[in-house]
């Protein structure tokens, strides 16, 4: 099993975040994440995309160890999070921040915007550098602290609440920001504002982002690399242009064909590209997990589980788990 980032020989950077064999199980025998290997290098945005129940949110939580994965390891900056003592893990938390889908319920309704953003630095007794203060951070996310700093969450719109959650995370100067569906609860006109903000903050603050989403157009806009998840496993991963321009896994192709796009007004809508439903994660199909819905499935797909391998020479960073990938 190779990951897309080699640490030796190639002179490529050591990954900031490295997952190996990560599994997340829930009572009742549901393996939401069924063995994921991932490496995220400093400064990149890696998106994990998939349908509901594919395990992407469980994976996001496993990355920040809230809660830790059932098995497998998460290494952050070279350190295995599992091996850390509780106090060491706590000390690492400011560097590993997360924002959530529902911006309103993830903020304390009784505290003002300023207090919400100031809580983290207070707890960590952190001296804020010049330009890193609470008010400056609020300004960075587009909330005017003089006019709105003393308002409480219910006095803000959904988009503004998401800006405050982002401020709360970035005020701690994290290395990694894990975003779980950060724009899917927002109106379309507001979604663009928050996506632009995240992209700008990533550049200004030198952030590394793990972006969890179901919307393929949003993911294309924000990502450097994309991992497609199906039933707890990664079925394809690669640079954003490769995944969208040259999708090799039949599931990725089906997903892309399903997206309703404004351009559809120009062409007539053709046949449904994929039939059936996602099987239950408590009893996934044998062999390839997608085979029950795959147009290309053969006997081999039922007996032998495909491994995540490079698509071929010249495509070292484009990996696909399929016996019969589509080569563009």
């Amino acid at each position: 099993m190779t990951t897309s980032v080699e640490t030796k020989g190639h002179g490529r950077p050591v990954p900031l975040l490295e997952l190996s064999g990560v599994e997340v199980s829930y009572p009742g025998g549901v393996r939401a994440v069924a063995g994921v290997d991932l490496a995220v290098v400093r400064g990149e945005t890696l998106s994990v995309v998939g349908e509901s129940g594919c395990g992407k949110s469980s994976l996001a939580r496993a990355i920040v160890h809230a809660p830790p994965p059932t098995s497998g390891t998460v290494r952050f900056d070279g350190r295995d999070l599992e091996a850390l003592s509780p106090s060491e893990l706590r000390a690492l938390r400011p560097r590993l921040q997360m924002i959530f889908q529902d911006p309103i319920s993830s903020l304390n309704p009784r505290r003002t915007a300023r207090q919400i953003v100031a809580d983290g630095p207070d707890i960590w007794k952190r001296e804020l550098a010049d330009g890193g203060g609470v008010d400056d951070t609020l300004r960075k996310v587009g909330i005017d602290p003089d006019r709105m700093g003393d308002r409480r969450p219910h006095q803000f719109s959904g988009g503004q609440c998401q800006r405050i959650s982002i401020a709360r995370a970035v005020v701690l100067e994290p290395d990694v920001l894990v975003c779980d569906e950060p724009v899917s609860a927002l109106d379309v006109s507001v979604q663009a504002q928050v996506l632009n903000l995240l992209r700008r903050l990533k550049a200004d603050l030198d952030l590394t982002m793990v972006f969890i989403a179901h919307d393929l157009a949003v993911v294309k806009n924000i990502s450097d690399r994309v991992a497609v998840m199906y039933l707890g496993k990664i079925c394809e991963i690669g640079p954003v242009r490769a995944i969208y321009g040259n999708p090799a896994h039949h599931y990725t192709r089906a997903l892309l064909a399903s997206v309703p796009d404004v351009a559809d007004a120009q062409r007539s809508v053709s046949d449904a590209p994929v039939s059936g439903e996602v099987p239950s994660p408590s009893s996934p199909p044998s062999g390839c997990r997608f085979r029950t819905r795959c147009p290309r499935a053969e006997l081999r797909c039922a007996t032998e589980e495909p491994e995540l391998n490079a698509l071929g020479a010249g495509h070292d960073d484009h990996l696909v788990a399929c016996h019969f990938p589509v080569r563009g």
Partner: protein
Amino acid sequence: MTSPDELLLEVVDVTTSFDTDLGRLVAVDGVSFRLHRGETLGVVGESGSGKSVLARSVLRLVGDRNAQVTGRVVLRGSDVLKMPDRELRRLRGGSAAMIFQDPMTALNGTMRIGSQLSESLREHLGLRRRQQRDASIELLRSVGIPDAERQLRSYPHQLSGGMRQRAMIAIALACGPDLLIADEPTTALDVTMQRQVLDLLDRQRAERSMSMMLITHDLGVVAGRADSIMVMYAGRIVERAPARRLFTAPRHPYTDGLLRSIPRLSDEPGRELATIPGSPPIVIGGSTACSFAPRCPRAQARCLNELPLLVEDARTDSPSSSDGHAYACFYPLGTESGDAALLGNRRAGSTAAGLPMAAFGPTGDGVPT
């Protein structure tokens, strides 16, 4: 998507308001439109735009005691808002049906799917037991539910989200409605399932020459499926046009802003998205000016003082005025006055509402044509 000329639904000046602690909240503000047989009308808007309240107003489903609905809703010649309750009960689930975003709130959780289908077949069509069963199985098959005979005995919670949505569609279609109102029918579904359900609705509409109001926040959902589209903002229709025209030549700055702020699969990665600054308003007491002016790159003094009405585009070459392109804007795209307003605001650095032009991002304020 051809539409015979038979007029099915005519909505005239419908206003729906709610008494709240803040005052009279006008959710739908003087909306008029017409729908012909076999046509699909897309209704697009963000949260709070009034699109769902409009859908409920059409079937008199606004149950709130503090609500007031005025205007006329004429369905096949009779006014829904004035008809006696008995007639209304025959209409709902009979010649007009509605499906909702969340099937769990629309389905009865304590009744088997089969009983819920039979109920409506018995009440509206007077079918006997044996016929009810056959018709139910046929309906479930037609919406793509596998193993239909067994599923008749299932309770809603035993079905997956996609199957529940299909069951709700089957119940709505049971009596062969002339009008189907679909309020965000696929928002709770995954993309692959969304595509299947939208295709199903479209097929059923064509086979039954049914008319459909497809209500959604997602412009992509109505693209390629609706014949015409209405865009709602703050309770009012701000633009209405044949679908293709709305996407290729929008007139209203809100429609234009929406279209350009949506990330698209055809875009290059990393593109800075155009934005609409601020967020949608809540209208108390009815609009007296353009509700979009505070977020609009073209806003002039007139927009802040006067309410723009929905007017037909003089240049549309459509024979019938109800199918034409209409918009509610003093300074629309593609007009001299509109371009002048935009360029003037750019020179001044801010709009008449005091919004700095920089707030629109690098390409966000629109291009004069």
